[in-house]
């Protein structure tokens, strides 16, 4: 089959690879009908996440039709149309039973490695380094879904691929980020980053009734898309984020701050941003935590910092004293997709939201490597890429 294969920094190719096969009774194999490039795929593309190996198939936003089912898998049958959550879950362990699916205790087959690096391993993830199991990703014609009897979201016939695909990651990720804020109708929610996760976060915060939602980015097309939903845009290259946020909150700061940026903040004019770039370039720091610093500074005392943005390792000069003294709450983590999936399917069906709004580019899988570059350089007003194998 054909797949997008990681060969190194900024080097992804459309390669021929062996077809996947059933390896366990709980597995299923799907014929991929749609998959997407995620912002966190760019962290792999930039080789900033440890644990990738040349030859790894990338991609963790995938859906398709079941074409083969393992003998122990009673939940799926051939022909079922499913979205594949990016977190692989067993559905049976202590964490899964608590709904903490992204830290499933059984699905990371490189648990020893995960334990060493993170203290305790997290769940297996599709196409996202050997620290999370080294599973093949879904930017491919076919995908083996391990633990598929638990790791799936069935898609109603009424829903298009474009409406359903983002249940795999960015929609529940944005939703979880907003839910983690315990939004009250008097709240101002500030969202840093208007990429795909940021866009979903903004809409989730609006649906959950925030008084005002503020969108922070530097790209006009992303801010325009955020404003289309009713968010107040701040272009950080044109105005001071701190001053504007204080102005919009009578000097008190937003109650809820959401970091939908993560480890590759693009701030260019601040001293800390230059410091981070220099340290990251010389491999003395893994992440550029400008957004975290800014959130910690501007957040209202007693407020909440919700962090769906991906961080990979060691962060420098994070002012934790602000967090402690202002009594801020931090909530973060990879998304527990299946905790939210049924509810979000219902919301799409009821017409509360149509996640397909975020798609700006649709191409064949063969053009995927080029689309990584288009997405990376924010060319062609690219916000979200869907690939059709």
């Amino acid at each position, binding site marked *: 089959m054909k797949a997008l294969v990681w060969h190194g920094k900024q080097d992804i190719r459309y390669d021929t690879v062996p077809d996947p096969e059933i390896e366990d009774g709980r597995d299923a194999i799907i014929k991929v009908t749609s998959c997407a490039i995620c912002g966190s795929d760019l962290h792999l593309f930039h080789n900033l996440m440890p644990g990738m190996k040349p030859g790894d198939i990338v991609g963790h936003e995938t859906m398709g039709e079941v074409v083969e089912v393992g003998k122990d898998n009673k939940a799926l049958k051939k022909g079922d149309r499913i979205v594949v959550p990016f977190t692989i879950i067993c559905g049976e362990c202590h964490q899964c039973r608590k709904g903490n699916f992204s830290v499933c205790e059984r699905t990371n087959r490189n648990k020893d490695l995960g334990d060493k690096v993170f203290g305790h391993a997290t769940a297996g993830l599709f196409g996202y380094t050997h620290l999370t199991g080294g599973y093949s990703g879904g930017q491919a014609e076919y995908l083996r879904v391990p633990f598929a009897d638990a790791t799936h979201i069935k898609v109603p016939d009424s829903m298009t691929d474009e409406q359903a695909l983002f249940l795999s990651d960015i929609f529940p990720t944005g939703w979880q980020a907003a839910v983690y804020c315990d939004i009250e109708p008097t709240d101002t929610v500030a969202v840093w980053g208007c990429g795909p996760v940021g866009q979903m976060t903004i809409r989730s915060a609006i649906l959950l009734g925030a008084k005002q939602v503020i969108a922070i980015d530097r790209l006009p097309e992303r801010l325009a898309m955020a404003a289309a939903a009713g968010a107040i845009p701040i272009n950080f290259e044109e105005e001071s984020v701190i001053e504007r946020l204080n102005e919009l909150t009578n000097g008190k700061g937003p109650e809820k701050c959401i970091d939908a940026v993560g480890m590759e903040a693009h701030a260019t004019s601040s001293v800390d941003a230059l410091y981070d770039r220099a340290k990251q370039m010389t491999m003395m720091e893994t992440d550029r935590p400008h957004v975290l610093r800014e959130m910690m500074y501007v957040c209202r005392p007693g407020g909440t910092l919700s962090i769906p943005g991906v961080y990979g390792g060691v962060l420098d000069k994070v002012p934790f004293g602000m967090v402690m003294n202002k009594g801020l709450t931090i909530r973060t983590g990879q998304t527990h997709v299946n905790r939210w999936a049924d509810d979000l399917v219902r919301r799409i069906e009821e017409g509360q939201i149509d996640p397909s709004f975020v798609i700006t*580019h649709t191409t064949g899988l063969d053009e995927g490597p080029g689309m990584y570059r288009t997405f990376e350089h924010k060319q062609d007003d690219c916000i979200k890429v869907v690939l059709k194998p």
Partner: protein
Amino acid sequence: MEASTLATARPDKSLTLTDRMARNLGWFSIGLGIAELVAPGKVGRAVGLDGQENVLRAYGVREIGAGVGALSIDPAPFIWSRVAGDLLDLGTLAQGLKGQGEAKRNAAIAIGAVAAITLIDVAVALSLGKERARERGETRDYSDRSGFPSGAAKARGAGRPKEEKKIATRELEVTT
């Protein structure tokens, strides 16, 4: 909502010839920098700059810095810094032309080599800028992409549970 489809084909490999050239220049820069740092005397004799060891050591540090940058995900500014460094090198090497015999000949050869590399650096830097320019491609209008089928105005709070929504509304009335 209909997704837009691109008219132009994208390549099936993400790494371009320009990227590879930039990386090769990065490794070359690091190699040259190490040579200037650890063996400035030998390098000086080879390019007609005998007795300028300290200058060459400083240039070595510069070359290594530019090389590390050229290997990063954003090599363009570092390739341009190499161009600036090339011009500095040419100016320094020109002093060697004042010498006699072999030193003068070596300086002339070095100037020719640096001039050739300068042209490559300029070509790669320009190409990187062109390939990575955000201006490439269409400008699109996303002002109609609210994502809320019933409209943005009706969406606010529409996702809260009904009972909670009533309570929440009362709270809002009190606090505003």
